[in-house]
C-alpha cells in the first residue's frame, strides 16, 4: 500500500503567503485569548495552591460541596467534575504550610452533607507559593536550555539559517499550542511543560527530516532554483511526514481517549503539537529558508 504512487509535485512554496497569513491569524487569536484571559492560566504547580480529588459513591450536588468548603476558609475554590460525575476536583487558592493534611480537612468539611464512607480522597496536591515560583523559573529555563542545545546541534550539523528556521518553526508550534490551551481554558502544569518539550523535540524531528533532504538535494541541484529544491525535498519526504505524523497521532489519540483524566491535557497538547509541528516543518521552516536565501541573493546583487 502507498499513499502516493509516485513522488508528488505539489508547489508548497507557492502557498507561502497563505501559510504565513494563516499562521499569523492563528497565533494572534491565541495571543488575544491569552490577553483576555489575563495571561496564561497556571495550574497549582506554578501558582501555588491545592488540588483535592474526591470520589463520591453517588454524584454529589456542587452546591453542597461549595457550602461545605466555605466552613474551612481556604480562599477561593473551583469545583469541577473530573472525568465522571462521581469524581470531583476541587482547587483552592491557598496552600497550607501547616502540618495538616488538606485532603482530610476538605473531607471533614463535607461530612454532615455526605456520609464519611461515601467520600474517598483520591489525590491531594499542594504546592506552596515559594515552590510554585521556583518551578515556574525552572520551567522557563528548561525550555530556553532545550532551545539553546538544539540550536548548537543544528548549527553544527547544518548551517546557521537552518537552526534559525527550526527555532522559528518550534516557537510557532509552541505559540499555537499555547493559544489552543488558552482557548480551551486549560491549565499550565508541570506535565504540560513536559508536553511542550516533547512537542519541541517532535517538531524538530520533523523539520530536520525535510532539511536533511534539502541539504542532500542542494548538492546536486544544478540550475534548479532554491525554492524548487525545497519543494522537491518536501514532496520527496511527504509520504514519510504523513505516515509518521499519522502513527504518532494514532498513539496520542489513544492516550487522549484511554489514558485517563490525569494525562488528558497532556495528550491534548501533544495532539495539537503533532499536527502543528507537521504543518510548520513544511510551511514555516522551509518558507523561512527561502526568505533567507532571497535576502542573501539580493544583498549580493
Amino acid at each position: 500500500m502507498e499513499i502516493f504512487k509516485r513522488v508528488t509535485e505539489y508547489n508548497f512554496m507557492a502557498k507561502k503567503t497563505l501559510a504565513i497569513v494563516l499562521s499569523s491569524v492563528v497565533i494572534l487569536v491565541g495571543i488575544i485569548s491569552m490577553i483576555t484571559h489575563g495571561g496564561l492560566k497556571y495550574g497549582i504547580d506554578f501558582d501555588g495552591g491545592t488540588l483535592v480529588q474526591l470520589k463520591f459513591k453517588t454524584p454529589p450536588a456542587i452546591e453542597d460541596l461549595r457550602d461545605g468548603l466555605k466552613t474551612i476558609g481556604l480562599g477561593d475554590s473551583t469545583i469541577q467534575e473530573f472525568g465522571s460525575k462521581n469524581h470531583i476536583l476541587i482547587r483552592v487558592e491557598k496552600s497550607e504550610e501547616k502540618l495538616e493534611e488538606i485532603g482530610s480537612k476538605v473531607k471533614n468539611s463535607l461530612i454532615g452533607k455526605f456520609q464519611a464512607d461515601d467520600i474517598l480522597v483520591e489525590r491531594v496536591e499542594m504546592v506552596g507559593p515559594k515552590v510554585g515560583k521556583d518551578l515556574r523559573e525552572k520551567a522557563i529555563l528548561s525550555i530556553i536550555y532545550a532551545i539553546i542545545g538544539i540550536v548548537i546541534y543544528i548549527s553544527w550539523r547544518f548551517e546557521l539559517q537552518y537552526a534559525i528556521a527550526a527555532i522559528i518553526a518550534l516557537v510557532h508550534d509552541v505559540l499555537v499550542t499555547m493559544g489552543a490551551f488558552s482557548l480551551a481554558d486549560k491549565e499550565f502544569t508541570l506535565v504540560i511543560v513536559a508536553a511542550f518539550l516533547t512537542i519541541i523535540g517532535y517538531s524538530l524531528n520533523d523539520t530536520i527530516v525535510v532539511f536533511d533532504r534539502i541539504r542532500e538535494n542542494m548538492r546536486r541541484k544544478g540550475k534548479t532554483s532554491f525554492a524548487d529544491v525545497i519543494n522537491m525535498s518536501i514532496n520527496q519526504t511527504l509520504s514519510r511526514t504523513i505516515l509518521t505524523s499519522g502513527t504518532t497521532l494514532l498513539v496520542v489519540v489513544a492516550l487522549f481517549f484511554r489514558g485517563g483524566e490525569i494525562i488528558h491535557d497532556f495528550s491534548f497538547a501533544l495532539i495539537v503539537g503533532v499536527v502543528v509541528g507537521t504543518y510548520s516543518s513544511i510551511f514555516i521552516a522551509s518558507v523561512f529558508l527561502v526568505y533567507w536565501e532571497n535576502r542573501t541573493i539580493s544583498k549580493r546583487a
Partner: protein
Amino acid sequence: MFINLKWKIPLILFVMLGAVYLSYPLKDKIALGLDLQGGMHLVLEVQTEKAVEASLERIADDIKREIEKEDYEIDRVSADYENKTVTVLMVDAIDLEAVEEIMESFTAYLKNEGKVREGRGYQFRLSKEEETRIEQNAVSQGLETIRNRVDQFGVAEPTIQAQGDRRILLQLPGIKDAERAIRLIGKTARLEFKIVDESVSPQSALNGSLPDGDEILYKREENIETGEVIKTPFLVKKRSALTGENLSGANVNYDGDFNEPYVAITFNSIGAIQFQEVTRTNVKKRLAIVLDGNVFSAPTIQEEISGGRAQITGQFTTEEARDLAIILRAGALPAPVVILENRTVGPSLGKDSIEQGVNSIILGAVLVIIFIAIYYKLSGIVSITALMLNIVLLLGVLAYFGAALTLPGIAGMLLTVGMAIDANVLIFERIREEIRNGKTARAAIDAGYAKALSTIVDANITTFIAAVVLFQFGTGPIKGFAITLCIGIAASMFTAVFVSRVIFDSFMSRKKVSNLSI
C-alpha cells in the same frame, strides 16, 4: 557480504536476553512511581532560622549562668534574633572587665562588637560560620530524625533526602493514612519540663504582671462531644528544667482505672540524674510537661523521683499515644518544618491509572501495528518485530537503572512507540524510492538504510536533547517521562536501525530475493 551476521545475530540475542533477564518478571523488577502505586511525595522546609534563634537563646542563658556563678550583678542578657547578637548588660560598668574574661570561652563563635549603653555592656555577634553550621546541622539532624520516625512508622522503601540548602524531600510509597503520616513526620516534638510559677495567678499574669523569666503556655483540651477546644493558661518558668534530649525510651501504657492510653518515658542515666535533681529541689511544686509549646499535664511533684521514669498523659487515642511514643523515641527536630509541597495519590486512583495507562498503550500499539502491517506488508512485520524488541529493551534498561514507571512514563513509552516507527518509515520510504528508481531489492535496502541513517540520527538527537533537559529540570513524574523518552530513543536507534537491518540481511542471505515485500 553476510559475514557480519555471524556476530550481529548473537549480539542481538545477547542484548535481548539480557533485557528480558533484567525485566522479568515485570512486577518485581520495575518499581511503580507514586502516582501509580499510591503514596506521598512531600517537600519540607526546615526553618533553620528557628534553630539559630534557639542557639542564641541558649548562648544568652549560658552567659548569664557563667556570670552569675562569679557573683557579678547583671542587668540583663538578651538575644536579638534579627541581628544575631547577644547583649550583656551589667548593673555597674566596673564589672565589664570581669565579663570580658568570662566571655573568653565564647570567643570561638561570638565576636565582641564593642561597648554599648554608656559602657555598661557589650554586644556580641554570632559568627557567620557558626550560623551556617547551626543551619546545616538543623537540616542534617532533621533529616536523620525524620528518617528514624519513618523507619519506626513502617514504610516500605521510603526515599528521604536533602534538597538544596534547607529542604527535605520524602517519598513514601503506599501510605494509607496521609494525615497521620504528616503529623508523625512534621511534629517538632520538643519535649520540655517546666516548673509552674504559682506566685502569681495565670490570669493576672495575662493582664500584664508577667514575672521576669516566666511565660504563659496553654493546655488545650477538646470536648469530644461538641468539638470545642478549651484553653487553660499556665504560668511557667521560661527556662526548661529538663528537656527530652536525654530520653532512652518511650512506650504506650494503659491507665489501670479507665484503660486510657498514656506514654511512659524513661530517661537515660544523665537524664535520670537531672530528673532526680529537678524533683528533689522542687517538691510540692507543679511540673508542666510541655510538648511543642503545649502543656500536656502539670502534676505536682510529691517527692524526689529516682530511676528516671515519667508519664505523659493527655486525651490520647491509642494511635496518637503510639505515634507520640515513636516521635519521642526518634527525638525532636532541631527546628520546626513547614510543608512546601505535598502530592498524595490514593492507592485506588493509582490502580485506575495503571489500568488506563496499560489500556492506552495496548490500544495505541495495536493500532500502529495493524497500520504498519497493512502498509508495509512483510517489511512492516520486520518493523513490528523491531518495535516489540524496542519495548523489551526499554523495560530492561528501566529495570537496570531502577527507574520507576510513572503515568507520564507510560505516555513516554507510547510516544517512543510512535517515534520508533518513524525510523522505519524513513528507511522504508527510501527503499521504495530506490526501487522506483530501478534498483534491485538488495541494492535498494543498502541505499535506503545508508541514506536514511543521517536523518534518523539527527532527528533522534534533537529529541534526545529536549528529553535530557527535561530530565535535568523535572521532578518526580516528569523525570519518569524524560527517562523513558531518553531510553526509548536510544533503544529505537538500536532496534529500528540495527536489528531491522539484520533481519532483512538474514532473509536476503538465505535465498535470492528479487521482489521485496514493502
